[in-house]
């Protein structure tokens, strides 16, 4: 896709979010105790963005991974309270990667149309599958599952089980919302007590299961890093604006090198983060290794983005520490992005292991 096509997707999305996810609207939602902005979600769906990177044969728009990244970043930028990251950024590409035609046929058109919301739990504990009447029943518990309180289906996996399955969040599943620090996202715990897997719900088994799980984790890491870059970009812009307007000692504080250089450092860190994330989504498009691509993105952007958001709080001074100001929301959002789908340090070790085991040319 050309840069101008991506610019257009960004502009259309940003325009919508400016009108529909303004600081006032967000505060009203948060004050009312909302965990989601489902009206906004429906408007994103109406743009076609739920199916942005879903092939047309499965009812999607058939655009590229960089197009998906563009939307993810805009949602992070606007602190949007939608299930987009989990459902479209992570679950959809995991299903596409599963090589299970029936699952793709039955799930993707509904996910792309926003009729169905999916989320993922790749680190489910005590995950078991038992056979009963020829069907498969899945049990286990998972925490820190994004948006499970509004999701219809859940992709479950664990590091030591030989399957990845899609299960309905039916009455055999208990979803409990968790009190997360990032109020713009909904973390939940999920308990599965013999949830039946539909005939086409087994996404992978045997050796393929861990491969798919790692791929899914990589998609999750890339999606959250796109979100983090978007949210850090907005935090930086707020800080720059403040530094130009706020006057102390008879001049704008942005003319002081102490502030100017901090802002320049934030630009530098953001450039590097954006490059690492863009590179990752381009690699997805070109069929590069998603595990390596995600690890590079997470290694660079995972720590840099929350640091940028933290610096934005600092540049704002006392005002940045108030509840009314958005600075803390960006910081909390970036901190959750950093923690989800493997912490940056773990990704760095994984990179080093890839380099040492396979040689640099294969990384």
């Amino acid at each position, binding site marked *: 896709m050309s840069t101008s096509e991506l610019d257009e997707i960004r502009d259309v999305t940003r325009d919508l979010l400016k009108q529909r996810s303004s600081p006032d609207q967000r505060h009203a939602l948060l004050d009312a105790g909302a965990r989601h902005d489902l009206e906004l979600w429906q408007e994103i769906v109406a743009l076609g963005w739920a199916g942005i990177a879903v092939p047309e044969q499965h009812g999607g728009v058939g655009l590229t991974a960089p197009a998906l990244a563009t939307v993810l970043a805009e949602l992070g930028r606007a602190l949007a309270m939608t299930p987009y990251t989990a459902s479209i950024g992570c679950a959809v590409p995991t299903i596409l990667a599963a090589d299970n035609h029936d699952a793709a046929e039955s799930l993707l058109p509904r996910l792309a149309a926003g009729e169905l919301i999916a989320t993922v739990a790749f680190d489910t504990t005590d995950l078991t599958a038992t056979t009963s009447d020829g069907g498969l029943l899945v049990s286990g518990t998972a925490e820190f599952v994004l948006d499970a309180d509004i999701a219809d289906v859940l992709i479950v996996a664990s590091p030591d089980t030989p399957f990845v399955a899609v299960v309905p969040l039916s009455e055999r599943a208990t979803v409990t919302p968790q009190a997360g620090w990032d109020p713009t996202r909904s973390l939940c715990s999920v308990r599965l007590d013999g949830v039946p897997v539909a005939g086409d719900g087994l996404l992978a088994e045997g050796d393929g299961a861990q491969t798919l799980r790692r791929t899914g984790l990589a998609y999750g890491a890339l999606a959250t890093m796109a979100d983090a870059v978007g949210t850090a970009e907005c935090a930086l812009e707020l800080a720059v604006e403040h530094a130009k307007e706020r006057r102390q000692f008879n001049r704008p504080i942005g003319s002081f090198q102490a502030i100017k250089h901090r802002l320049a450092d934030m630009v530098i860190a953001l450039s590097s983060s954006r490059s690492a994330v863009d590179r990752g989504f381009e690699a997805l498009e070109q069929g590069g290794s998603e595990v390596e691509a995600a690890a590079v993105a997470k*290694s660079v952007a995972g720590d840099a983005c929350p640091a940028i958001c933290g610096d934005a709080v600092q540049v704002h001074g006392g005002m940045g520490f108030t509840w009314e100001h958005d600075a803390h929301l960006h910081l909390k959002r970036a901190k959750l992005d950093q923690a989800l789908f493997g912490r940056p340090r773990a990704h760095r070790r994984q990179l080093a292991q890839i380099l040492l085991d396979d040689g640099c040319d294969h990384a």
Partner: protein
Amino acid sequence: MTEAATAQHHVPARASDVLRHEVRAWLAEHVPDGWREGQSGATREGYAEFQRWWFAEMRSGGYLVPHWPKEHGGRGFSIAEQVVLHEEVARAGAPRLQLHFASLYHLPATLLHAGSEAQIARHLPAILDGTVWCQGFSEPEAGSDLASLRTRATAVDGGYLISGQKLWTSMAEYADWCMLLARTDPTAPAHHGISLFLLDMRSPGVDLRALRQASGAAEFCELFLDDVFVPEDCLVGAVNDGWRIAQSTLSAERGLTMVELTERLRFGFRRLVEQLAAQNSAELADGWALDALGASYAELEALRHLSGQLVDQLVARGGVGVEASVAKVLYSEALRRFTTLAVELEGLPAQLSRGLLLGAGWESGHSMQDFINSWMWTIAGGTNEIQRNVIGERMLGLPREPRVTL
């Protein structure tokens, strides 16, 4: 170079693959095995001789000035083709043409942009025969504030008399010619009273003193000019237009230089990893080492992506903007972190000198040398502090510091 900048970046995949294959095969045959060991601790003469030998090899292979226009003996390489060449030279771990760097890049870019036909006809062919150029910009009192330079050029009959002192003139000891910035109008505002000259280093009144730097090498000189006569035809462009010419030439060069440096660093990193893997280094059992290696790899990959974007910008606009400042800070600080890591991984043995290795860039594999030399990149080319001012003021539009008038 500006000429090449209008060329297509996305050469057809096959053409670029053919070039890559050709360059890789040529380098495999011509880069001497063990040249790093051979050059470690080399004498100044040994270094210069090796540099001149590699210069001749590259020339015979057709890889010395492929970026020059065809009518001047180059091959008119597009930017994309130059990127391929830089990548392959880095991959092969070939020597860097350090002695002739200004001759091959800065001087021709300047003359092709602003020089007269006679200057081009006189100097470009001579470079192919080995003329070494140096660059006389900085002064003891004009570093970050380069525009305050004091070296004075006074118009006299038939030319100028130049007096003053230059510092950090790289390779001046070997240089035949120097690109020199001097003040021609002391009454004009700082940036508008400077002219660019071509100075014959054999002119009477030119005196040199080698400047030993922190690494122990003396790649730079102090240059003393005492009423040196420079004929009129050695003024580049218009009088008092030197600052603008120097800035625009540097901007055109920045994108490609970043690609070259980034690629060299990436392959320097790879050589380190391969060495650690081959030695089955005990350090690898430590989590911190894996963490740091992963971090270094990731940041170099991100930097490479960013450099690629600069090159795209160079193709689209013929130059790179303030984003070059971002890339320069990232490169220099990634270099610092990488060399710090290399020293730490090597432990005490890194503290013993194996003899300086010149001409291997900033990733010679002599970890302490590379570490010490990494300050060259956080200081030279506009200190990273100046770059942060540039980013803050030109990119973010923050107000300048109030001017202090004494």
